[in-house]
């Protein structure tokens, strides 16, 4: 608790500190590559025959996904707190890579925890982290994926709390993480809103994003929450099917529970044991969901659908061939949703899809699953 209070205090101070904001903005601009473009997907729009599809290109950020927005913000906080060791959990490896990246940038010791199953399916990212100077520790307990990596990171943190900062990668965990991580990703929606008004002179009818922990989606949604006519659509991992253990769709089969310091919707059994989950995409493969999403769902402000492994794999190919963009498998879930939805929308309507990351890390999985001539 003391560490959480300390973090919150430093964060609150930093929020009001203009030099902190300036430094963060400068790094986002000159190092990470912000602002990211909002791209009109002309061929995809034509193929689908309905609404105009715009793609928010978080995949063009340095390290290949939105994760670095949050990593840069927290890394600057680590500096303020005078700590020198940073630990993180990672699912698909993008957050791990972004963490290793900012630690190299600012000179911190870096340890990343990753489930051994995830290490196998996202090998490229494991190598990248090590190349960047981070130590990657495989976690062999439980389901050997993201939630187990978080358990191990938390164990490290409580043991080394005086010297170490836990750089959590999504809008999960105990307060202040869900708020703080969301705040660091708000820039996505702020940019997108300005960009779409410039391009179309009006707000979109819908915004679609994939939801694992929920950071990229809340990042793009947040600025639009006040625009009641803009539909906010989150897409969860439908995995192999609807049975508990075959997917990671928390709003389709989960119930309120506490996991790793957060109270939210959790996939669990009748005895309150947390369920194993499945998704072809490591980054969505998590049994709980950011509490702000639970609130958006419960209040009806956002809706949540799901896309199956098959839908996501198919969507990867469609986007690759109609727009020359290979999305991360996580983002492909959002693409799958727009493929389903856009044909039924009016041609005058606009839909924005958050492409949260690029698919280089998924080449192995794509090769296993797609039959390309």
């Amino acid at each position, binding site marked *: 608790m003391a560490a959480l209070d300390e973090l919150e205090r430093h964060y609150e101070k930093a929020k009001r500190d203009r030099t902190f904001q300036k430094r963060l903005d400068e790094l986002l601009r000159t190092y990470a590559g912000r602002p990211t473009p909002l791209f009109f997907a002309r061929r995809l729009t034509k193929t689908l025959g309905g609404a105009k599809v715009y793609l928010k290109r978080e995949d063009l950020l340095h390290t290949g996904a939105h994760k670095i927005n949050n990593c840069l913000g927290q890394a600057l906080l680590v500096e303020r707190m005078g700590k020198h060791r940073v630990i993180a959990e990672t699912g698909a490896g993008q957050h791990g890579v972004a963490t290793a990246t900012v630690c190299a940038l600012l000179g911190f010791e870096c340890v990343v925890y990753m489930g051994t199953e995830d290490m196998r399916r996202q090998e490229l990212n494991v190598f990248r982290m090590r190349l960047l100077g981070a130590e990657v520790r495989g976690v062999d307990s*439980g389901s050997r994926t993201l939630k187990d990596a978080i358990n191990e990171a938390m164990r490290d943190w*409580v043991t080394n709390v005086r010297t170490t900062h836990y750089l959590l990668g999504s809008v999960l965990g105990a307060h202040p993480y869900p708020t703080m991580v969301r705040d660091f990703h708000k820039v996505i929606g702020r940019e997108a809103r300005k960009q779409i008004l410039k391009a179309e002179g009006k707000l979109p009818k819908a915004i679609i994003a994939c939801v694992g922990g929920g950071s990229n989606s809340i990042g793009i949604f947040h600025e639009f929450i006040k625009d009641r006519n803009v539909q906010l659509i989150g897409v969860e991992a439908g995995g192999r099917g609807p049975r508990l253990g075959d997917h990671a769709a928390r709003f389709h089969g989960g119930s309120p529970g*506490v996991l790793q310091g957060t109270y939210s919707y959790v996939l*669990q059994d009748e005895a309150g044991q947390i369920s194993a989950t499945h998704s072809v995409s490591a980054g969505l493969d998590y049994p709980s969901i950011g509490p702000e999403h639970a609130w958006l769902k419960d209040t009806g402000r956002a809706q949540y659908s799901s896309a199956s492994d098959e839908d996501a794999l198919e969507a990867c190919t469609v986007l690759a061939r109609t727009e020359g963009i290979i999305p991360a498998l996580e983002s492909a879930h959002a693409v799958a949703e727009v493929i389903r939805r856009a044909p039924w929308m009016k041609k005058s309507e606009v839909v924005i899809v958050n492409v949260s990351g690029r698919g280089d890390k998924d080449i192995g999985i794509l090769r296993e699953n797609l039959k390309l001539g």
Partner: protein
Amino acid sequence: MPLRFQNRPALVAYLTCGDPDLRTTLDIALAACDAGAEVIELGVPFSDPVADGPVIQRASERALRQRTSLRQVLELAKQIRKKSPAGLIIFTYLNPVLRMGIKNFSAAARDACVDGALITDLPVEESGEYLAEMQKRNLATVFLAAPTSTDDRLKQIARASSGFVYAVSRTGVTGARHQMPEDAPKLVGRLRRYTDLPVAVGFGISTAEQFRAVGEFADAAVVGSAIVEIIERNPGKEAESVAQFVEQLSAVSRQPSVKR
């Protein structure tokens, strides 16, 4: 429910229920009580034991393979209570309790005649409903105090606690260590400014010497991983092995009735 510690330090023994099976846990618990344990913490295995080191993690996984549940642990407690007056504390993470319902859990705990509960990941700040339901039924609410807890939090923890206060001896997770860290006596000293409740120190105690040393500044010592590891290493002879270990520990504690 008064939880009275007789020896100094009193022995609080933690068991992961259902490892290797519930019947054996019953035997172990009774054997430990006979050998001198004054309180048994009945650990409910959880899928994500974030505060636990590898020994208890492994025990939890084994117990979960048998589908050991909170409900079964409460039933086990009832069985222990039939044969022993020892203190019984349900030791669990929050989610299984939430799933059952806090009110239902408290009622079931009362029904099983346990003395109280300790919910590892329930901070005092979130404990309002839990405290109300447990206090209503005269059940103890044990909370964890850490070396990193501020004085303000220690005050809150003390206020919410009943039965005893559990002082975690070091920053870290459960697991046997070779030396007692310096954090422990300091934490206990700070706690005593805010409470008259007995203080138990836990995490890392595995030898008679460590156990005895705790008695110099605390009222009780919690032994968990060391016992769970003995169970792991002695299949078929769990109860006797634990009883032997508990006897060794009990031998070094002071007994108020013994003339010196």
